[in-house]
């Protein structure tokens, strides 16, 4: 750290987070996942709806490096499908046809992020070969590609949902705590109304209000709104408790004496002090949104096929038979687990770093 520069306690706490190995590793993992989701259409070898029925439930494609005892550039064999005596699919490598793995392969014209026109994707194999890194689903769609596209929905729902519910929670909690009295009473009863209904049923109830004829984009937005409606109340109550204590701080009284407006005082001197708590809470609550979307999509009320989300991809893994025969359909579950765990660990490490800042504001 620079000696001549001065740091606020908050900056010092952030600095100690940057130095933590565990937090840093999982934060990088998250950034990596989000980056992959962002550039999904460039990184994925296929689009999310490109299907090859003849390749339904194909296992992960083996990548070969050695040809007749010699190291060569990586390649894959074509796969041929046959059925065994139990009518189960058996894929065999057809050694007569091999396709090399390449970087920057040409494809049909598409738009990166929907704007930049492009004719190449990051990697793939020579046509007409196919590479399925994580296998395919029932309709012969590449799970790896769909995971990347699905990450866009599953990961962004967490972020956007948390932003909405935290915006709401901070505002309501800040106002309730600062003004107290009747304002506080009304707002807190409102929160309790939301908190009384079990989250999952509230989610279903709200979902049933959404019209059937919504397109996938509208469904996505309504899911975000539904999920944030569930999350904000709990946070509002906590922020309210904190601002009840914070408003008695003498620097808040001093700001009042300087004639600052209530709005400025809440924004400047109250809510920023709940920030260290909020960041931790945000990290720990994003998994809830990801799982919420997964749950909705899993039971068919969320993102609809052919759009991919980790939740609706998992619905393929609903029967034991499928999991036994094609365990790779569980891949989205693994990614959900990894993401949720990373958020939890980062949140945990952040909490340790911010703990000294929360002295006297929070009971626990």
């Amino acid at each position, binding site marked *: 750290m620079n000696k001549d520069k*001065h740091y*606020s*306690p908050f900056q010092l706490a952030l600095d100690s987070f940057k130095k933590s190995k565990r937090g840093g590793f999982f934060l990088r993992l998250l950034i990596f996942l989000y980056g992959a989701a962002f550039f999904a259409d460039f990184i994925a070898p296929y689009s999310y709806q490109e299907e090859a029925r003849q390749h339904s439930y194909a296992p992960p494609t083996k990548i070969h490096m050695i040809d007749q005892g010699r190291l060569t550039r990586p390649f894959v064999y074509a796969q041929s499908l046959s059925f065994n005596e139990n009518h189960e699919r058996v894929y065999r490598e057809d050694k007569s046809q091999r396709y090399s793995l390449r970087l920057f392969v040409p494809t049909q014209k598409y738009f990166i992020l929907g704007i930049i026109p492009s004719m190449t994707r990051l990697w793939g194999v020579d046509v007409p070969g196919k590479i399925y890194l994580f296998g395919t689903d029932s309709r012969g769609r590449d799970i790896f590609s769909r995971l990347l596209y699905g990450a866009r929905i599953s990961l962004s729902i967490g972020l956007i949902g948390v932003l909405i519910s935290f915006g709401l929670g901070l505002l309501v909690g800040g106002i309730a705590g600062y003004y107290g009295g009747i304002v506080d009473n009304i707002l807190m009863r409102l929160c309790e109304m939301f908190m009384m209904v079990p989250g999952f049923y509230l989610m279903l109830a709200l979902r049933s209000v959404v019209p059937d004829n919504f397109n996938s984009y509208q469904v996505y937005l309504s899911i975000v709104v539904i999920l944030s409606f569930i999350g904000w109340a709990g946070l509002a109550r906590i922020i309210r408790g904190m601002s009840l204590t914070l408003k008695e701080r*003498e620097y808040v009284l001093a700001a009042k*004496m*300087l*004639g*600052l407006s209530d709005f400025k005082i809440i924004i400047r001197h109250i809510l920023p002090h709940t920030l260290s708590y909020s960041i931790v809470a945000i990290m720990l609550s994003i998994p809830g949104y990801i799982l919420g979307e997964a749950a909705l999509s899993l039971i068919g009320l969320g993102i609809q096929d052919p759009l991919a989300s980790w939740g609706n991809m998992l619905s393929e893994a609903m029967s034991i038979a499928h999991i036994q025969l094609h365990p790779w359909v569980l891949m989205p579950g693994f990614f959900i687990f990894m993401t949720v765990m990373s958020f939890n660990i980062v949140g945990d490490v952040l909490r340790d770093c911010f703990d000294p800042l929360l002295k006297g504001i929070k009971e626990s």
Partner: protein
Amino acid sequence: MLLELKNIKKYFSVGKTTVKAVDDISLALSKKEHLGLVGESGCGKTTLAKIILKLLKSDAGEIFFSQENMTYPSRDRLRDYRQKVQMVFQDPYSSLDPRFTIRNILNEALEGKKTDKGENHLDEILTAVQLPSSILYRYPHELSGGERQRVAIARALLVKPQLLILDEAVSSLDVIIQKQILMLLKGLTNEFDLTYLFISHNLKAVKRVCDKIAVMYQGRIVEYGFTNAILTRPLHSYTQKLLKASMEYRSDKIKMSDIHFKSHFVEEEKGHFVLRAL
């Protein structure tokens, strides 16, 4: 009269018991007067100050400022009033927002004012409270208690108040700085037309700056008068005790340090001291 309090009451209920923090207090301050408010810990001094600042609602009583009834002011009147009355809070560790640099803290005081002097003004005020201007870039947690207290005084002065309430404003400072700050405050009286309400346990500090003293005891004012009169002929038994205590403390000082020395050090024949093993 600049400030008049009439029959102010404030009771707190803590569980089943009621604490009479301020119990029927009437008080008046004329312009440029320096009033000292002394009393033991927990007698309601800070509570009274907060009521004057309208940070706390009183249960009963009325407040007048420049003959204007300020008991139930409108929003605009309240904002106006608060610029005219400032307070330096008791605890220098919580009176500055830890997330702000000293510059931002002081600038906030200028925010409501329409002065174009701005930065020059900060330097001026820092000189007045004897802080280097390099302090502007620091955060409160990097300052000592005394430095923070002076920043708080600077902030209050920047608003150019008519009434300044100092709640134990100098108790956390060392004696030399204490003296300097007290001299400074006295000097500012004429420059700023300041009226002080000086809250303290420390009779000595009060004596140095105040014309009048009000002695508070369990939420009431038990004695009020000119500083000299009170210090020489205290009437109320509590005032007598308080005075006696502060006198004893002074004369005891030498003795106490003696004892302190003897219990910790043994003189050795060679003429230097060593720490005795405990």
